[in-house]
């Protein structure tokens, strides 16, 4: 499963950040997931539930997810539009010369701990 691999990355990063900041308990981890990143938020939550029990630091933590909308830019008319709604064809001018501006990323935004 794709999401499990990502969760392992997230846990590793959070553990590093916790060590740097002398945190011994994490209450929540907030991730930003791009709408078109291919990562399924529901699966992330499920995987987190499974993975956190294996970490002393994270066992009581909650995974919070914020969705970053997919935005596509049209090279011909210079306007932007929703990637999920219109995919590759610009709804303003009908051009196919478009590229994804944002929404395919995946990052850890912040962690809350003590």
């Amino acid at each position: 499963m794709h999401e499990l691999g990502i969760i392992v990355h997230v846990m590793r990063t959070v553990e590093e950040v916790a060590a740097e900041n002398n945190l011994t308990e994490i209450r929540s981890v907030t991730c930003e997931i791009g709408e078109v990143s291919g990562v399924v938020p529901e699966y992330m939550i499920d995987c987190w539930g499974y993975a956190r029990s294996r970490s002393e630091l994270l066992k009581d933590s909650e995974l919070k997810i914020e969705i970053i909308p997919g935005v596509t830019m049209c090279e011909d008319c210079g306007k932007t539009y929703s990637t999920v709604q219109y995919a590759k064809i610009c709804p303003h001018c009908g051009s196919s010369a478009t590229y994804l501006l944002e929404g395919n990323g995946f990052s850890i935004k912040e962690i809350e701990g003590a």
Partner: protein
Amino acid sequence: MKDFKVIEVKRSIFEDNNADADKLRAELKSEGTFLLNLMSSPGAGKTTTLKRTISMLKDEMKIGVMEADIDSDVDAQAISETGVRAIQIHTGGMCHLDADMTRQGIREFGTKDLDFVVLENVGNLVCPAEFDTGSTKNAMILSVPEGDDKPLKYPLMFSICDVVLINKCDTLSVFDDFSKEAVKERILKLNPDAKIFFVSAKTGEGFDEWADWIRTEISEYQK
């Protein structure tokens, strides 16, 4: 009562892996080991293609194969029969390899004396494309029975590959709706620099060109 505070992290998971992959690529370069990340869907003919490739090149260079699979060691056994070193990496249920897993495999395998190492990634056209393994080059195999529309359905995979092998060309007479021109055009639209070879691992068609590509890449790399 513990004093909880919020710490901004702002770290991209994919970027972390990319940085790790770049580091591994540099380590391999200093050792002169060329790592080819080979991807495809299940059943496209990765192992058969590898076996034929190995038989053509094994007298010219030192080759090793790392087989990544969710479970089983069927592929590693098949490769060992060709006489080159092979190791099986179990991903433990995961659908792809990342740079850290690749590094662990490389260190366990011991690749310092090898010229050409092939990493046979998990059979899947989605996830392996998103995680840079730290390989020198990326290759993928698309087989004729899968259809010429695959570049449209899995654009990321086709856009990150340096080379695409269109395998099972001996079946073109059966799958006569597969258009070589269409598949080529679709791949090049996503990735204008992609090298495309039409091959058959069964008959050996197209393998001279493919083996030449590997020879040239490795000799340039080791200069």
